[in-house]
């Protein structure tokens, strides 16, 4: 055995790792050679040659290649371990409950409620302690949270790849812009109208295409997005590529927030907000919208309809065989997802007061999709985190801005290869009411929603075990962390 660690063996081992990385580096440099070294002077059609970028490229590729291979190996190792566990029929998974991730620990902690209240308070105070620029970034970020959560219903929960999601956003924005421009309707009337129009368009698109599955659906939605943009670009009523400007910001019961209230603040209280008051107001509107969305999406996911969506995502044929009306489930997913895009669109139009079709290109759909993919398909906290990472972070890292799109593309590939479940994996609610073990495990649903542990911990013979005492002492929602402790009565769960 000791011969395994001789210098020559280690050398061979290192070389076996480095050689493919070197090969990959060579290959990528070869690929990038003409495009990265030659640059064209467009005025006189001459070219110049420079190798300056190649060393960076080579270094980057070499490092990335080593990391890539490492993760790929780790991934295949994980797959094998899982397969072995499954083939040995280890019942561990059932009795132990799901493996606690940092998210479930946070969500299941007893300070969850207090934490949420603190977070909410922070969000409420935030616009008052930041500058106008940050408020704008915050609004954009929250708009994307809404969009991400809406798309998450379609892509993450129901498994319908919608590549034209931005169209519904555009429809919402244009509904408000046009109604305001031509009829002078106010924000508050247009907000529900925008949502409604988007829903109707979702249904309109949904009806014919709902029979299509998978990639075909993706293509049709993509075409729909492009058609919408092209039509907006060519119609006279929308003012074509010049767009619509001077869209009115929302008023507070007919009060123009930038008029009297700002005067009052500046003249009587001596406080200069340094920004448009309506921006702060919009911030609160979108914050309320985000909270509403989160509540709705959470309730939806755990509803009968949400279960139908999940089943549809997993297997369409099987879900139909279980008596789920597939057409209805798909249509509702489509329509509901579009609603949020419409609402977000209205808020967006009122935020920037000028819209044109260029704001709603395919890029936007990709941006929202990458929020969902990065955050974790089907996971609400994941999507929120994804939206923050993708919209707010680049604002802070201006220096990245020209590489931003490049990185998004790379990120989508990397996420799919190494972590298809996203940053925060969506936790599926598992009902195990009838399953219990000596440790008094609660169901995951109870752990996440903080329901009191009544039924699940009816004390069996082994109730004197320290695990049980611990779980009761901790009150609610410690079941997941507790579940890690080995049950004293052996690994199998008995059903009651």
């Amino acid at each position, binding site marked *: 055995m000791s011969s395994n660690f001789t210098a020559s063996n280690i050398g061979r081992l290192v070389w076996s790792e480095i050689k493919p990385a070197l090969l990959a580096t060579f290959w990528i440099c070869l690929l990038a050679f003409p495009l990265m070294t030659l640059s*064209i002077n467009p005025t006189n*059609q*001459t*070219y110049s040659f420079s190798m300056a970028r190649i060393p960076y490229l080579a270094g980057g590729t070499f490092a990335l290649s080593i990391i890539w291979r490492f993760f790929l190996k780790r991934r295949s190792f994980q797959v094998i371990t899982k397969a072995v566990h499954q083939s040995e029929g280890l019942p561990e998974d059932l009795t132990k409950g799901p493996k606690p991730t940092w998210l479930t620990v946070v969500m299941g902690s007893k300070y969850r409620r207090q934490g949420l209240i603190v977070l909410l308070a922070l969000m409420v105070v935030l616009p008052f302690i930041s500058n106008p620029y940050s408020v704008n970034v915050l609004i954009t970020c929250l708009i994307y949270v809404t969009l991400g959560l809406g798309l998450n219903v379609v892509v993450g929960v129901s498994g319908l790849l919608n590549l034209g999601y931005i169209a519904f956003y555009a429809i919402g924005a244009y509904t408000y812009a046009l109604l305001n421009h031509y009829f002078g309707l106010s924000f508050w009337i247009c907000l529900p109208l925008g949502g409604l129009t988007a829903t109707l368009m979702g249904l309109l698109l949904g009806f014919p295409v709902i029979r299509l599955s998978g990639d075909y659906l993706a293509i049709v939605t993509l*075409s729909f997005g492009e058609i919408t943009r092209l039509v907006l670009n060519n119609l006279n009523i929308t003012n074509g590529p010049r767009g619509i400007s001077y869209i009115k910001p929302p008023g507070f019961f007919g009060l123009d927030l930038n008029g009297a209230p700002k005067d009052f603040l500046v003249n009587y209280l001596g406080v200069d907000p340094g920004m448009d008051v309506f921006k702060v107001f919009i911030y609160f509107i979108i914050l309320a919208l985000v909270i509403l969305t989160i509540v709705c999406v959470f309730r939806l996911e755990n509803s009968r309809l949400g279960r139908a969506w999940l089943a549809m995502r997993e297997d369409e044929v099987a879900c139909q065989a279980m008596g789920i009306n597939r057409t209805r489930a798909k249509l509702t997913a489509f329509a509901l997802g579009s609603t949020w895009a419409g609402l977000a669109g209205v808020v967006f139009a009122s935020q920037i007061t000028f819209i044109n079709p260029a704001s709603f290109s395919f890029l936007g759909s990709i941006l929202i999709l990458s929020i969902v993919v990065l955050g974790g398909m089907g996971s609400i906290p994941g999507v929120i985190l994804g939206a923050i990472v993708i919209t707010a972070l680049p604002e802070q890292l201006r220096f990245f801005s020209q590489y931003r799109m490049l990185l998004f593309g790379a990120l*989508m590939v990397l996420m799919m290869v190494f972590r298809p479940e996203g940053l925060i994996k969506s936790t599926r609610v598992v009902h195990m009411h009838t399953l219990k073990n000596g440790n008094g495990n609660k169901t995951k649903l109870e752990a996440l929603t903080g329901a009191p542990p009544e039924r699940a911990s009816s004390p069996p013979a082994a109730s004197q075990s320290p695990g049980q005492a611990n779980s009761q002492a901790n009150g609610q929602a410690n079941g997941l962390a507790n579940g890690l402790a080995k049950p004293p009565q052996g690994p199998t769960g008995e059903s009651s």
Partner: protein
Amino acid sequence: MTYFLDLFMSGLTRGSIYALIALGYTMVYGIIALINFAHGEIYMIGAFTALLASLVLSSLGLTGWGLLFSVAAIAAIYSAMYGWTVERIAYRPLRGASRLAPLISAIGMSFFLQNYVQLAQTPNFMLFPDLIPQMPFLKPVAGYLNRTQVMILLFTIVSMVALTFYIKYTKMGMAMRAVAQDITMARLSGVNIDRVISTTFIIGSVLAALGGVLIGCSMRQIYFHMGFLAGMKAFTAAVLGGIGSIPGAVIGALILGFAESFAAGYISSSYRDVVAFIILIIILIFRPEGIMGQAQTQKV
């Protein structure tokens, strides 16, 4: 009548270019049931490589047919390398993953390549040199047919015939057909799946690169975003003809080319792209299996 003929010829050439790109889509889809979103980008990279190669080679003194063919060859080789690498990085590790994963990965790859070319080269339109030599023998039909159109048709027809022979009569072609029919069974029969898939990507990329060179010569300008729309339209063509079917892709591409050309000529040129997308949606709704494709029953 001349107007009609003009539109007809422009539709024919347009359709031929779509056909070259559509073949890549249809072959890849036929074999691994994946919409290769990055295919349009491969076509764009082909055009950019051709531009760079033509500048370098013409400064070295190459002209005429020699220049055209060597530029086309370089573009084809580079695009093939890109196609192979894209498959290796973005699709191969995802074999056996859920259906959505490779699709999203493909979108990411397409996005990455677009921005890579934008950053490495330029976000502006680039002038593409006229590579196609004069053809004196075209004098009598000069009103209807120019040398670019002749070249496009010639290239397209030759590639179609070569591809058909390759698929029909070579061992690799047979392996491709086997994999397209049943990937598991083909593997059991000793077909090297990875190699077949790589070859498919390479062939598709070569055809796309030829399309890129030809569109450059015909439109005389290229830019980094050109692959997206062309890719979408080629995909439409592939679906129209029945995805997975090679003659279907050609027929679909020609129909699409004519439809666009006549719509632009008789309705309005600003709605040309809308026509393509509407055709796509209508086809998918009423005949998702396309013109030449066969309807497949869903397997459990």
